[in-house]
């Protein structure tokens, strides 16, 4: 290799002028890279496993008979009721919660553990752009994975009732409306949990602590007094369920918040968490000690 030759051959480097067009290019590039990492790498396998479990459960129950040799889903209304329970307990409380924890925590903490966060820190990218891009990538992958899970589970309800029932429900709007609501709820849940876990991923060296604390808080939210319920994400999300569920014994009953409050609350939380993440990233000291 002759360096003089190389210098002579060196291409003219295009000038990068800061502004919206540069930020947009950077945003798209980071989002693409992070999306591939979050959804198409080995790291995502555990999330695929999580999302598969409710699908398998509802598919099996579609073919299953109960003790009286009747289908588990006796009627389509009963099936929807079961789905509402499975969605709120397993998909929302288990799959989306843990899946978002895995995807969004690893956006920053994963790179700190991998000792590769400095490659991002050393790039001429506004920290606001970096955080937004990573969040969008996480959100896209979480929504694709868990939205698909919720959607396929919803379709699995119709296994005992045949294709005619699906067509009829889709055409008269009941199924489509409910499916849209569940998907919207999934998106909001991924946003809310995702933004919080992304911030805690930078804030805590041990990601277990925020996950356990938030899981505990969300699990006991039903017995919390109304003044404290407003600080739990699940309170806003449960208010948006198409089919309201019976509260557990000992629950402190309060009216669910109006839809607009639920949605704007989630968006507000998301913006707040993103703001905190940006501040934390700006103050980040790259010093890889042992875990």
């Amino acid at each position, binding site marked *: 290799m002759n360096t003089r030759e190389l210098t002579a051959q060196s291409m003219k480097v295009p000038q990068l002028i800061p502004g919206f067009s540069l930020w947009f290019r950077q945003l798209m590039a980071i989002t693409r890279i992070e999306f591939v990492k979050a959804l198409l790498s080995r790291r995502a396998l555990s999330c695929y496993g999580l999302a598969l479990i409710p699908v398998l459960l509802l598919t099996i129950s579609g073919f299953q008979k109960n003790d009286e040799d009747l289908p588990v889903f006796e009627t389509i209304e009963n099936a929807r009721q079961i789905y509402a329970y499975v969605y709120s307990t397993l998909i929302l409380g288990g799959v989306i919660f843990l899946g978002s924890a895995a995807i969004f925590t690893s956006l920053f903490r994963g790179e700190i553990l991998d*000792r590769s966060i400095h490659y991002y820190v*050393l790039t001429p990218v506004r920290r606001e752009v970096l955080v937004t891009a990573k969040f969008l990538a996480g959100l896209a992958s979480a929504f694709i994975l868990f939205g698909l899970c919720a959607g396929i589970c919803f379709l699995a309800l119709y296994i005992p009732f045949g294709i005619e029932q699906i067509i009829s429900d889709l055409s008269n709007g009941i199924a489509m409306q409910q499916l849209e609501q569940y998907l919207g709820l999934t998106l909001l849940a991924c946003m809310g949990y995702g933004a919080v876990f992304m911030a805690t991923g930078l804030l805590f060296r041990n990601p277990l602590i925020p996950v356990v604390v938030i899981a505990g808080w969300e699990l006991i939210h039903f017995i919390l007094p109304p003044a404290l319920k407003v600080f739990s994400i699940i309170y806003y999300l449960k208010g948006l369920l198409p089919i309201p569920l019976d509260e557990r014994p000992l629950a402190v009953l309060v009216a669910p918040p109006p839809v607009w409050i639920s949605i704007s609350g989630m968006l507000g939380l998301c913006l707040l968490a993103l703001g905190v993440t940006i501040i934390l990233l700006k103050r980040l000291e790259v*010093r890889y000690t042992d875990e």
Partner: protein
Amino acid sequence: MNQPVVNQSEGVGDNIVLRDLSKFYGDVLGVNRINLKLEPGITGLVGPNGAGKSTLMNLIAGLNSPSRGSVEVLGVKPSRTEKFYSQLGYCTQYDSFPSGIDGYDFIRNTLLIHGYDKSAAEALTQQALQQVDLLKAANRPVDAYSKGMRQRIKLAQAICHTPQVLILDEPLNGLDPMARAQVIALFREFADAGNIVLISSQILHEVDLISDRVVLLNSGYLVAEGDLTHIQSETGEPMKIFIRSSHANDIASSVFGLEHVVEVQLHYDGEGLFVRSSDADAFFLALNGKVMAEGWHIESIGPADETVEAVYQHLIVEQQVAT
């Protein structure tokens, strides 16, 4: 000698300027009150393990924020990320990479994140890979690279956006002699184009070869800074001069009587001698007179200890032994 205090406006735009820079990790001192101006050219950063070399480089590159003081690179502070990092390339000590990535994507992704469009990113990737001679291995996963290849891909990542400032933390580690020579030539080209290169290394012989000037750190403190002749002259140590001549014996007996000559050593082949003098200028003047008078033939003459190793030996090793 006290460290020079760098003025607010003094040559800030073309240099790296550190003002009263300190970093503490709790009770542990990283670096303390460093005032330094690094000009275009190659500067070697030398010091024993734990001297604060990597801390200083991390502070300059904005990976760590100072506990006190400030850093400016070509007049820009690290908080202005867009401008700051577009002109800086940093090859860190960390031997880690995003998992599962191949060499080509590693460089291309960096350039895409910088904001280059796809075609420019690809062209610059090719160029950077060619500069470090890794084109053939570009599509292999970095995890499967040898140590030397990983070092080279890190270098490619640091230079791919053609920065004006290159900070290199032990960049020659793990490279074979051929690759070392290529990489050193690359740094020289880069510095000759008016850019700043800061290189830390433990291999003093190589720092000697590469650097235009050196910065010596010890225990977080700046020990010396400047070109070697300048540092050597300020150490106060008698200067060691090597003279090659067929009249080595005569010269030795003649100069031994000079007041400022403290040691004379004949070379084993009898064709040269080492002289230690506490006043080099007076020695050269006196030697000149004697050579003219006696008609001795002098083949070569020059300082024998104007090396980083000698300076390091005197300013760091001997000081440590003394304390």
